[in-house]
């Protein structure tokens, strides 16, 4: 008897759980470098054009998820603006694929990730970076050895927010890549489906509990890591 049977999940639901985990993990990790770069530029840059970038980053928060999903469909869909290009040159196909669900999640969570990291970067004492420079470290080395370790709390916060959001993202995902079991049916879309039929609530609530369980586990791990990191950094 497998774990999912113990939880009273159907095979399809178990697939949705696995898929959600994969989508959330990939969405979080794949958007991390971009999130970090954007956070850094927003925190440190002085170019007036950054106000636009900042606005764009916040869009997924401001727009109703269906709109974001629809825009994703128009951009990354099979016949979208970038879709064919990405498919041809990078082999990246998003339309109606789990990768698309990951993209939708990543986009929706992006403002949260960026803001958390940006706050941390802004809190870094730049005198320490200057000190590293006087010891001969070029800017990239300063970033990797000084800035990055000092913003671990912000990075972890950004990652966990992104992960949690991915576990709950539904509107953009279902609009962009539909709700195809085994491919794009994540936990939240499965929950949605169950909520749409008579007597579906019980099933939905079971999945909700699974989703909460996963997210709480991720949360606890992130808090533990954060505590470890800050414990390493200071004590007094």
């Amino acid at each position, binding site marked *: 008897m497998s774990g999912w049977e113990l939880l009273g999940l159907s095979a399809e639901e178990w697939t949705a759980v696995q898929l959600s985990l994969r989508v959330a993990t990939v969405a979080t990790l794949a958007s991390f470098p971009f999130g970090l770069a954007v956070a850094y530029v927003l925190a440190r840059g002085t170019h007036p054009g950054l106000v636009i970038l900042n606005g764009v980053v916040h869009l997924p928060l401001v727009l109703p998820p269906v709109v974001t999903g629809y825009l994703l469909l128009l951009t990354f869909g099979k016949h979208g603006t970038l879709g064919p290009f990405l498919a041809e040159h990078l082999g990246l196909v998003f339309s109606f694929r789990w990768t698309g669900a990951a993209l939708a999640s990543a986009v929706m969570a992006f403002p949260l990730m960026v803001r958390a990291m940006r706050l941390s970067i802004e809190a870094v004492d730049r*005198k*320490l970076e*200057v*000190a*590293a*420079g*006087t*010891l*001969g*470290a*070029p*800017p990239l*080395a*300063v970033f990797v*050895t*000084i800035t990055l*370790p*000092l913003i671990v709390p912000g990075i972890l916060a950004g990652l966990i927010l992104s992960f949690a959001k991915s576990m709950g993202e539904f509107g953009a995902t279902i609009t962009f890549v539909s709700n195809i079991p085994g491919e794009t049916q994540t936990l939240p879309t499965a929950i949605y489906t169950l909520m749409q039929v008579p007597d579906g609530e019980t099933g939905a609530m079971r999945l909700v509990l699974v989703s909460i369980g996963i997210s709480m586990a991720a949360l606890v791990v992130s808090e533990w890591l954060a505590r470890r990191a800050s414990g*390493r*950094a*200071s*004590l*007094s």
Partner: protein
Amino acid sequence: MTLQVDVTSRAGDFALSAKFETTGGLTALFGPSGSGKTTLMELIGGIRRPAQGHVSLDGQTLSNSNSGRFLKPHQRRIGWVFQETRLFPHMTGRQNLTYGQWFVRKRDRREDLDRVVALLGIEHLLDRKPATYSGGERSRVAIGRALIASPRLLLMDEPLAALDDARKAEILPYIERLRDEGSVEILYVTHSLPEVVRLANQLVLMSNGKLLASGETTDLLSRFDLAPALGEGEAGAVIEAVISAQDEAFQLSQLTARAGQLFVPTLDLPIGTPVRLRIKARDVMIALDRPIGLSALNSLVGKIQSIEPGSAANVNIVLDCQGDRLLANLTAKSAEMLGLRPGTPVYAIIKSVSFDRLGLGMKP
């Protein structure tokens, strides 16, 4: 190595302008709190951009407001001991100390971790993060970090201010060695005149953002007119001598200066070594006859050159001792009682133990 500086800068209400040139070794930057010492160093180190002027090191232009050239700090190989230490909080002592090594070419590395650690007495800090260090421990690690990075110019901003005298006495000879090896030039901020005397071959006096004077330490310290800038009770003459004998039984060194023979606490240097010693004006007594039955070992024959009123009850007397210029600080009452006048032949009496170990060393 030479550092050429000619800069102006402005931050809020504070305007700084300074023009000086060093000829290597250690240059002390001396001046009251808020006079612009740290700011000047920032301009040299590339942390702050001069409004006008240029900085060059060994002929290489580091910044020049005319050409717009401005090297970033990491392109200058200028090390820092920051006044506020700026240790990396997320790294252990060891990681802090060796940080700079990653960015120096092997052949430029001069310092060895173990030696620096032993010298500074920071073994117990190697595996701990700076958050739990004491104030003085932070400074020591900061000094070590800068040294191990092997810079060609080292900016030290009150590096020993948080340390006790015993610890200072351990570190000073090491800084002397650095200075004399000639591979690094040092710019050294301090509020302690003994440190200046001991370490600096050149001195830059700052006051209120302006350069008050700059030049050879010996010259500047003998100028009574700079006494207010140098601090009460710190005026004194610096004379040069060579070691002429070692008295091992009594652990004294005998020095020969133009003024005559002097006994000082033993200097562990070979006979013939030129040394520099500072004789504080307050440590010099004047006698009309050669004293007998007095514990002071040194009495130099000289002639009073001038008598000037000093602060409060004191007079400043300049003596000419066979060409060496000595300063003496007496109460006006003594001067009157002895009937001292310019031209009076006198003896200058100096206790051997009054030579300040912190201010006695090889000629830089």
